[in-house]
């Protein structure tokens, strides 16, 4: 049983560029959440997708957008990259509501913005 997978593992971009990160949830899970984790800090909630809709959103600008596909996989898009967007981006999946259920995290995508 495959766990949560993310791609790519590492990514280097320059300011102003756009990036797309991908996530496949654990088998049987229907909810995907995305987090940004800066070095030495806790994961910051970006948004959650359920039934192909964004259900909840953290305090992130509209430059951060996402999508969930019918097979529950998800993408995170970040436009007009800033140096401050450099971080580890974690995807987590759960069966049902994020706030009430165990989340399984993927290994993350390390984004570096130069």
């Amino acid at each position, binding site marked *: 049983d495959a766990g949560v997978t993310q791609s790519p593992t590492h990514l280097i971009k320059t300011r102003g560029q756009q990036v797309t990160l991908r996530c496949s949830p654990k088998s049987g899970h229907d909810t995907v*959440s995305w987090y940004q984790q800066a070095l030495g800090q806790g994961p910051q909630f970006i948004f*959650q997708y*359920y039934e192909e809709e964004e259900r*909840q959103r953290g305090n992130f600008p509209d430059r951060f957008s996402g999508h969930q596909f019918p097979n529950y996989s998800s993408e995170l898009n970040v436009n007009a990259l800033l140096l401050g967007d450099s971080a580890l981006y*974690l995807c987590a999946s759960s069966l049902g509501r*994020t706030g009430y259920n165990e989340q399984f*995290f993927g*290994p993350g995508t390390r984004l570096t913005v130069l």
Partner: protein
Amino acid sequence: QQPVQSPQAVILREGEDAVINCSSSKALYSVHWYRQKHGEAPVFLMILLKGGEQKGHDKISASFNEKKQQSSLYLTASQLSYSGTYFCGTGGLDNYGQNFVFGPGTRLSVLP
């Protein structure tokens, strides 16, 4: 609003006990605990829900004081493998876990 965790860091010897605390200024419907080792993804430890339900690993013990909006994670007879950063996450104001927020983390080091 981000929950507050204490202590920020703790160093133990193998076999010693530790308590990590998490508190919020907002009403809590659920508290989650995760452990993250350096360079790895967070791993689920426990969920405590309003009303008393708990889901988690048998070897992990935690409490949830709904009135005080506080939770504590109890680590007993610590092992070297317990080392890592412990995060509490709070959430659950609506059906989709609104306002789910992780705390800043507590760094635990267990020495031989």
